């Protein structure tokens, strides 16, 4: 699956985009975040307070219990501040 990071989530993870293949035990967004936090200090920092993170799967907003599957485009970012 393809992961995208924006704004300060991007600066904390240190990358804007990566492709990952998590184990089968990663079923939803919450699982994915926990798995990412174990992979490195940048992600652990970025996701330290999940309430600050918004998630989109395939460019639609989702909640933490949304399922994730191979081939998904999953984006993590702070609350938006456009307009």
């Amino acid at each position, binding site marked *: 699956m393809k992961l*995208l990071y*924006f704004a300060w989530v991007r600066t904390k993870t240190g990358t804007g985009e990566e492709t990952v293949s998590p184990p089968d035990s990663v079923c939803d967004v919450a699982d994915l975040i926990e798995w990412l936090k174990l992979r490195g200090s940048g992600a652990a920092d970025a996701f330290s307070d999940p309430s600050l993170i918004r998630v*989109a799967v395939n460019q639609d907003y989702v909640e933490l219990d949304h399922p994730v599957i191979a081939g998904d485009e999953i984006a993590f970012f*702070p609350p*938006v*501040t*456009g*307009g």
Partner: protein
Amino acid sequence: MIRVQRKDFDVGAELKSLTNGNHQIGGLTSFVGLVRDIAGGQSVSAMTLEHYPGMTEKQLSAIEEEANRRWPLDASLIIHRHGRLEPGDQIVLVACASAHREAAFEACHFLIDWLKTKAPFWKLEGTPDGDNWVDSKSSDDDAAARWAKG
């Protein structure tokens, strides 16, 4: 119509082409968002707008469709810029045209309120203390919540 672009836009030309030739339109409401030189008491020298290409267009189209479902609009337009901007620069243009002014006003207000909480843009402000990511405002959430359907 929605557009996401780096370059500036000409408000007069955009509004003119929105209503041109449609004589059913009685009212055209528009909103232009501009970069301020001060924010939260700090001076701002520049603002860089990051966005999520693809999702931005998808969300703006969805917001525009929702406005057209709720109000009888003859035309609507959202133009949102990204990239580096300076104080006084235009960020966003939202415009709605309708036979009657109430629909034009409400739909335009709805669009900018929803855009502020739904469109994937993030602002990085350049200040004397360095660059800061702008925090979302609870007042924006409150403004968008007014339009939630009961």
